């Protein structure tokens, strides 16, 4: 079935979770390793 909205939903879900997980990983770097510092 070429069910376009469902495919779009699946891709959107995958990309959102990809971005969110990457963001969480980047945020947790400074928590895990205190030597790291966020630079502007």
């Amino acid at each position, binding site marked *: 079935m*070429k*069910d*376009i*909205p469902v*495919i*779009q939903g699946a*891709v959107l879900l995958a990309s*959102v979770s990809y971005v969110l997980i990457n963001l969480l990983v980047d945020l947790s770097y400074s928590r895990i390793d205190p030597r790291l510092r*966020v630079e502007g």
Partner: protein
Amino acid sequence: MPSGAAFLVRRSLSSALVILGTVTLVFLILYWLPGDPAELVAGENATPESVARIRAILGTDRPLWAQYLDYMGGLAQGDLGTSFATQEPVGLRPLGTVPGDDRADAAGQRRRHHPRRRPRCSGGGQSRQLGGSCHPERDAVPDLDALLLARHPAHPVLLGHAAMAAGHRQRQPGPARAAGGLPRPHRRRPADAHGAGQRAGRAAGALRHHAARQGPAGAAGAVPARAAQRADSGDHPVRHHRGGAAVRHGGGGNTLRPAGASAACWWMRWA
């Protein structure tokens, strides 16, 4: 900490950009993909008129920018669109979907792989679900007209079919209409501009409810369907792979193909 907040803002903006780009890219890819979803929904023996009507219902007859703006506008309100196959709101359906799990998927397989072994309609053509009908080209038309009427009250395609749709709605007894009030998770559209879409969704809900309520007829049709599905479940991957290859190598441009031809691509079935 101010630098952390700035980091978060920057990252959120770039993340939004990434998601926007992904959504746009996927939208364009799916738009330019060969194959007409209306033909797939309509079934193999659909008349050109009913295919055109389904195309209008799905909204795939509109220009690219209109579809894109509509999709993005819905997305901004948390509306991921409505499944072509089951007429349900998409929502988080991809998360919990097992291929071959839902009824519409099983019906689609039955249509594609067993055109000769199609089970007879025990209810005399009363199965009115979009994907589960034994004769989608005949049965689905009144339903689709009702949907179209709800979505575009003055659509040109609809002229001449409105009376049929109204008659169909009147034939539906009370509970089917009351099903419009069922709580549905994706009713977040405001009532002003998108009232028509909401009505369409409600009509789809009523229709699904109607199909589900037809216990005896639906059950009688479902048993041979499940048997057929079980019978050919062993060689599914091979079939779909072969079908996908055929679509890739054989299909050139945007030609209209018979419904079964492009429907066999494996990822299309997954979704």
